[in-house]
């Protein structure tokens, strides 16, 4: 690992596209780092499940989705939300439990949503959100819309029966749904080896002869390329597809840092050169293979930082929900 990244995607991804992916990943990265930096202040009174290390998956997949395509997310929700185009200010405001949050402070970080861009909610019940994507796909088919639905979930979610039921339904009805599994090999502190017969989630769809691919989720070009195939396949009416993205969860399950890492990580995750960095790799490729100017990339980051600072300021200054509204929103 950690050898110099190679640009396998020359034919597949234009330089502009790669810069776009870079920008998306950098945005997620910088947001997560900022959240982590400020978390100890206890002003974001919400559990946070950082996507640090996993930025390439959301970025590479959502690059192929339009606003009318729908995604469904889980507890590790930040990257999905941002990559799908969710409003940054509203997300940070949600972390600060404010009325201006994307769920008006009712949901917190595990329950992000932005229906305007096709993000229909994050479920904190592991596996619980998967069939919702199937339902969206069913609706697309009935409504004859050329859209796809995407479910993002972790390796542990693939252990739930509802995942299999969902795949089966999707194949049966040939629905335009893509199951994206971010396999980071952990469920909280439990390694996949104590939970699953083998670590290859990509095998599960064999039960139904459903197409699937395993991809290096630390390589944004690879994710982009495979996701392109998957999305096109589904959008063209060929039915569902599963994409297993092998990723690294840089931090602990929730909160900042990974203070207990020595106590639960598998030995191979504790070696000094364990960590791979999809953003840094992308940056190297852009500069070395695509001749992009380093300053241009710095410019992107600077701009993002400004946007992020503004979002935090917005969130901090926003009003809290009104206690009198406690019972609002139970029903429509």
């Amino acid at each position, binding site marked *: 690992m950690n050898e110099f990244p190679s640009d396998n995607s020359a034919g597949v991804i234009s330089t502009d596209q790669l810069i776009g992916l870079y920008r998306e990943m950098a945005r997620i990265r910088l947001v997560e780092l900022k959240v982590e930096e400020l978390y100890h202040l206890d002003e974001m009174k919400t559990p946070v499940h950082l996507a640090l290390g996993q930025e390439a998956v959301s970025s590479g997949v959502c690059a192929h989705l339009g606003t009318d395509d*729908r995604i*469904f997310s889980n507890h590790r929700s930040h990257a999905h939300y941002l990559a799908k185009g969710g409003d940054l200010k509203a997300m940070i405001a949600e972390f600060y439990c404010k009325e201006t949050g994307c*769920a*008006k*402070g*009712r*949901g917190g970080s595990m*329950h992000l*949503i932005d*229906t305007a861009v096709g993000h*229909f*909610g994050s*479920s904190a*019940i592991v596996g*619980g*959100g*998967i*069939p*919702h*994507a*199937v*339902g*969206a*796909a*069913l*609706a*697309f*088919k*009935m*409504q004859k819309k050329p859209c796809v*639905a995407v479910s993002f979930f972790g390796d542990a979610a693939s252990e739930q*029966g*509802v995942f299999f*039921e*969902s795949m*089966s*339904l999707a194949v*049966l009805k040939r629905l335009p749904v893509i199951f994206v599994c971010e396999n980071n090999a952990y469920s909280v502190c439990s390694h996949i080896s104590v939970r699953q017969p083998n670590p290859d989630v990509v095998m599960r769809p064999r039960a139904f002869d459903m197409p699937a691919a395993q991809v290096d989720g630390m390589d944004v070009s690879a994710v982009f390329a495979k996701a392109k195939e998957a999305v096109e396949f589904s959008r063209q009416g060929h039915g569902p597809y599963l994409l297993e993205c092998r990723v690294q969860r840089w931090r602990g399950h929730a909160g900042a840092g990974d203070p207990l890492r020595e106590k639960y990580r598998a030995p191979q995750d504790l070696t000094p050169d364990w960590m791979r960095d999809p953003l840094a790799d992308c940056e190297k490729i852009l500069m070395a293979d695509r001749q992009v100017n380093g300053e241009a990339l710095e410019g992107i980051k600077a701009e993002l930082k400004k946007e992020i600072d503004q979002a935090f300021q917005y969130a901090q200054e926003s009003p809290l929900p009104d206690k009198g509204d406690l019972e*609002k*929103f*139970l*029903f*429509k």
Partner: protein
Amino acid sequence: MPWTKLQIEREEPAFDENLGQDIRKLNFGEALREALDQALERDPRVYAMGQGINDPGGIFGTTDGLREKYGNERVFDTPLAEEATIGMAIGSAMAGLRPVSIHNRPDFLMMAMDQIVNAAAKWCYMFAGQVPIPLVIRACIGRGWGSAAQHSQSLHGLFTHVPGLKVVLPSTAYDAKGLFITSIADENPVIFIEHRWLFKHQGSVPEHVYSIPFGQATVKRPGKDITVLAISHMVIESLRAAEELEKKGISLEVIDPRSLHPFDEETLLQSLSKTGKLIVADVDWKTGGFAAEVVATVAEKGFHDLKKPPVRVCLPDVPTPASYVLEEAFYRGVPDIVQAAEKLMR
């Protein structure tokens, strides 16, 4: 002939709400079928699915011929995968459809409890009203012929405890149609629980589309001595008991709340202020069931009207036994209501 039908033909005497009147009558199942038919007709967003929906039986006659009429895209069979099926319904509801998810028995909904409790009931609130879930889940309580422990539970006592769900249990053909229409039109998840023994009963059911608002109880029979708040098939039992008691000079006021959530407290408390005495008759277990909620509500809000301890006529707290002799001991009905009423009048 399916055995549940057999049982009903034997054990449940037909009940006609509008006996002797020369009007169009439908039975309970026909009323539900007509409601679904009209909903499918009027609203292209409505679709219906369920195990055996296209069977010759048509889910107790409630879906007969609908696939032929509306096609396989809007009326379709489903795998034995309650959890993903209801999850799919939820996802499609978010996308603007109006799913009707039909299940033979409430017992089977336990397979999908996570989707019902943690998704359907939560989405609207958790996302501050942005994504309501207009979903109807229908299921039909079984009874008799050894249905036994896993095919005879009503379980509405579970659903009424979960905020975010509306819970409806009609007792007549007229109510069934009107409440089913309301359920489909509602923007929120509705658990619609039928009772297999009601399917035989008939009454006047208007041909046009009509809607019965949730949270409006009906006085199925006015009376002055005792208020009987009766749920689902216990409405019929209570009406029969009332006839019997009338001969003995005891007058029951039978109230059918129709929807348990929302619940019409007013009609109940008003009746109580007149009678001072309460029987709650439910087709569910006693402990922790909705009948307890009714009694608690009355104890809190009708305390000064209550002249006697309220009485719950509910199922004993055991799983349903199979043997018919034990079924006889297990189920509650006319004799239990009569007995409770006589005791209250002593």
